[in-house]
């Protein structure tokens, strides 16, 4: 049962991710202090900010790896971890959340490929077991995705036999194998050797060009300037500034943004 609450919350149906006043605490420490973000369908949002600014936590809230304490967080017009009924949010069972998560791909800083499976097995495991695809169909799709990330010849390799950049490209292909509506990237190039960053970014650029909706937490300002439709600067659990990446990088409004950009550029 697919429901959406675009009308109820007066959100445009073209919005893929809607966050308003999202708050999240660990005990007495509030890490998200009312985050407002809107990511339209087919657009790329890059989130930058110093470590501890809450950008990764926010990303993990989107697919309910972390629960939020208050606020509204919708993906494609629906809650990920809850069902709205009679003005109450009912927590979903793990299996129900999984069905919603299957539509939200995620790529991690440390790749998190399954080391006991070959590259191909990494790609087809979830499509077969979660989406119920036939093995042959899943295999065909996986090989096509591997070709797209330039790793067709690595299908039978194990993750540990690949370089960091190759592993991350496989991780992206694995996320794509689920045919997600949106892809979340949690610092996808931070664990890579400098000379391997480029190959991963170029795959991400291709995805953006093909119209994939993406939210990217990153330190790659150059990538953000070139690819992002909106740049979001987070600091201390709030969005300090957001807007067009070129304008914001050239002419930051908030002093914190200016300070941060001066350090990383």
């Amino acid at each position, binding site marked *: 049962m697919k429901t959406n609450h675009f009308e109820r919350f007066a959100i445009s149906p073209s919005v893929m991710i809607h966050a308003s006043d999202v708050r999240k605490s660990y005990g007495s420490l509030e890490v998200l202090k009312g985050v407002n973000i809107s990511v339209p369908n087919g657009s790329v949002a890059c989130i930058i900010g110093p470590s501890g600014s809450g950008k990764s936590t926010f990303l993990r809230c989107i697919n309910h790896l972390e629960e939020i304490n208050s606020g509204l967080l919708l993906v494609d017009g629906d809650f990920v971890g809850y069902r709205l009924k009679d003005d109450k949010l009912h927590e979903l069972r793990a299996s129900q959340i999984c069905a919603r998560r299957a539509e939200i791909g995620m790529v991690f800083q440390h790749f998190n490929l399954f080391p*006991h499976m070959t590259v191909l097995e990494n790609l087809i495991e979830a499509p077969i077991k979660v989406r119920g695809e036939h093995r042959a169909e899943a295999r065909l799709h996986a090989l096509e995705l591997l070709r797209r990330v330039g790793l067709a010849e690595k299908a039978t390799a194990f993750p540990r036999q690949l370089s960091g950049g190759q592993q991350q490209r496989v991780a992206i292909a694995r996320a794509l194998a689920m045919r997600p509506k949106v892809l979340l990237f949690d610092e996808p190039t931070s664990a890579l050797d400098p000379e391997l960053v480029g190959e991963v970014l170029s795959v991400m650029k291709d995805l953006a060009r093909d119209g994939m909706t993406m939210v990217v937490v990153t330190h790659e300002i150059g990538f953000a300037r070139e690819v992002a439709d909106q740049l979001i600067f987070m600091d201390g659990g709030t969005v300090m500034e957001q807007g067009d990446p070129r304008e914001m990088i050239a002419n930051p409004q908030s002093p914190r943004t200016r300070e941060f950009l001066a350090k990383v550029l």
Partner: protein
Amino acid sequence: MNVLPLKDDSVAAKRAQFTVVPLRHPWRWAAAAIVAILLLLLLQAVVSNPNLQWPVVASYILNPIILRGLWVTVGLTLVIMFFASVIGMIVALMMLSPSKMLSLPAAGFIWWFRGTPALVQLILWYNLSLIFKDITLWLPGLGTVFSVPTNTVMTPLVAAVVALSLHEAGYMAEIIRNGLKSVNRGQTEAALCLGMKPSLLLRRIVIPQAMRVIIPPTGNETINLLKTTSLVSIIAVGDLLYSAQAIYARTFETIPLLLVATFWYLVVVSIMTVGQGYLERHYSRDEAGHDPAPGGFSRLGSILMMREKWRGAQ
């Protein structure tokens, strides 16, 4: 003065003219000689001592009573290990649960069954009828559904299986919990993000990786358990040791029959060790070719070597 030329290939050419004189290890040779002499003396004592009665040992090796006992020992080990693994898995999952009502009883289970000697538990379970006279199923509204005297249920064999399964489950729970915890949290998150349910995630992602950590200590536990089953001879279960005892109680050929039992225990343990090696290799197939364990003749050959082979390119 002769200065080394700068060009690389000519350096290599010069290097190739030298013969490398290996370092001698005279003390290593001396120690090895002493050990060899001691081994020979031991062998001579074992072969020539008439009290060991080797012909009697040989005559009992394939004795039907001994073989039946061997079968009971192996069967007990497998059945107990099966139950211990299942119970251990449940207890390990309870330990990892966020609910204290699950994790604390599980911790209590481990504390109790690991903290008491196997022999004590064995005798306790065997004497269960002294605590509970009858085993009764009573349901509200229906009354007593059935009731049996404890003594008819708690035969020596059942007591042995129950006592040792629970005892072993305490150890297995800790081994499995360690294995599950050894799998990186990122693996679980990646699987969740692909929409995998907790049960699927456990079965396909976590357990296969945990197995690598679980198998080696489980192999040791199985080998230990095989030997621990000899305790059941106390409550008259006809295992390998009990069978040997039953014969020598009659014939007074105590030492030869204990040697027969020893022989079979060693045979089974050796087979288990080989099997464990295969299992370990199966669960680390992504590392195939990186850490080849020497087996068979190459292992024998390496015993006779005085130094490690110089591996890699020269």
